[in-house]
């Protein structure tokens, strides 16, 4: 029943070979943006066409796929892409980070530490970190080639001059392997330290911009900063309202129009597995409260 009409993982074999060559080149030159012949995918640009092509190129029949969108396994984007590969490749899918071999992500890195047999695929909207400072692509390529990255600090300088601290909260520029400055896709800067010396292979695909780049396992990734304004990951100063985690990245959810809000883990898998292990937060759902209060139904 599964996908006889499609080639394995949707793309034809020649296209996958082309993408794999780009991926190999990207791994060989960490942080360097490799151009590739991005294809039309059956989803709009901005929905992860780059990430999907990278995933399609590296997926094998034995792989287990997890897809997250802003940390969550159950948003439209995550579910659609998971179903897409379940249908076109027939691979097993999961929401558990430890069980996955390929994790496609939009803007988060899972809280659970990744291992050597996992690949993290990022969906990237704008791969060029210098884009908004220098609009000419010819010029930014030259700047990458000559490692002229003074301009990146101009952006950080502007942040401090305007806000008193480095206010860039996502897409925080990093230097990979002491050479290329790279845009880590719009992940919150909370996740930047996880990229450093990570055992898993990290691949970045930008479909509209037709670029692929990579961080090989165990590669040094340094967030740019000033000596007197060092890089600091940002996190809301609260425990998760559902699982009481103190170390995870939190989403702020507005609950009413009177200023009510709650903070919950952005990584749903992490939060759920903590709840299953018996951790409870201040706003945990009824079963826990029922149990705590002796229950309604007995």
């Amino acid at each position, binding site marked *: 029943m599964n996908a006889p009409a499609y080639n394995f993982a949707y793309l034809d074999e020649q296209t996958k070979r082309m993408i794999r060559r780009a991926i190999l080149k990207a791994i060989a030159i960490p942080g360097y943006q490799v151009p590739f012949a991005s294809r039309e995918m059956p989803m709009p640009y901005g929905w992860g066409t780059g990430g999907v092509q990278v995933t399609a190129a590296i997926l094998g029949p034995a792989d287990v796929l997890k897809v997250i969108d802003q940390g969550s396994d159950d948003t439209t984007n995550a579910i659609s892409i998971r179903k897409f590969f379940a249908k076109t490749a027939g691979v097993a899918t999961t929401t558990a980070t430890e069980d996955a071999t390929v994790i496609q992500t939009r803007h988060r890195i899972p809280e659970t530490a990744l291992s050597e047999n996992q690949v993290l695929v990022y969906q990237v909207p704008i791969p060029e970190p210098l884009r908004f400072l220098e609009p000419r692509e010819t010029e930014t390529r030259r700047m990458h080639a*000559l490692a002229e990255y*003074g*301009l990146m*600090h*101009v952006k950080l*300088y*502007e942040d401090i*001059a305007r806000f008193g601290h480095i206010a860039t909260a996502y897409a925080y520029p990093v230097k990979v392997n002491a050479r290329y400055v790279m845009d880590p896709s719009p992940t919150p800067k909370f996740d930047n330290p996880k990229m450093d010396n990570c055992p898993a292979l990290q691949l970045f695909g930008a479909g509209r911009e037709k670029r692929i780049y990579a961080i090989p396992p165990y590669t040094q990734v340094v967030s740019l900063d000033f*000596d*007197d304004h060092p890089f600091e990951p940002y996190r809301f100063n609260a425990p998760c309202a559902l699982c009481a985690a103190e170390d995870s990245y939190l989403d702020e959810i507005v609950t009413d129009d009177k200023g009510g809000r709650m903070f919950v883990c952005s990584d749903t898998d992490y939060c759920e597995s903590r709840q299953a292990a018996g951790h409870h937060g201040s706003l945990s759902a009824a079963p826990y409260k029922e149990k705590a209060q002796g229950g309604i139904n007995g």
Partner: protein
Amino acid sequence: MVDQAALENDQPLLVATSISKSFGRIAACRDVSFALYPGEVLAIVGESGSGKSTLLQLLSGQLAASAGHVSYRMRDGVARDLASLGEAERRFLYRTDWGFVHQDPAQGLRMAVSAGANVGERLMAVGWNHYGRIRETASDWLTRVEIDTARIDDAPRTYSGGMRQRLQIARNLVTEPRLVFMDEPTGGLDVSVQARLLDLLRSLVAELQLAVIIVTHDLAVARLLSHRVMVMKGGRVIETGLTDQVLDDPREPYTQLLVSSILPP
């Protein structure tokens, strides 16, 4: 005992040897040779289309010459042919040892980022990594070019024409270059602002011992700033000499015309 600094100053900083440039059949610049010494201000004057700006681009390595070559004495004292420099070296030279002041400040500044970052960009490009020190140096330079330091966080697009031009100068001088190219730095400014800018330039040039190549069609600018003048016409240098000599006692008919066409005060 030999005075090393004096010995250094005896050698030319930049030497142009019969450089020419043609665009198709049009020869924009023909057989220009000269030597520029440290701390010397050279004005290139002439009417529109005489090849001044082309010459400036050739000298600053933005255009490749059709014939001839330009050599520059680097900070280590070795003279290098500009054409033989790699792109990385040339760009490094550009943001450290050289400055380029454009006629239109929008070309030389980043109009959307603050004045402080504009001045600090060159410092960050050469590896300064301490926000406090970058800002301190930037505000120091704003003071030197007479811009109120309260406006350090304003973008140059909120500045007046004169302030933009002074900011551009600060941005170029912050790495203490030895050679600055200027293309009509006072063009488009009104007379009183021009006078103040020239005054500022003159004191900075003297203070920092800058060598300057300044392209202008305004003989008053040449007279105020420069030690030597080169007069160009039709892509050729037709007359060259000390500023007062050329302007007070012009030899060539064209120079005589140029000098006599200044309106009497």
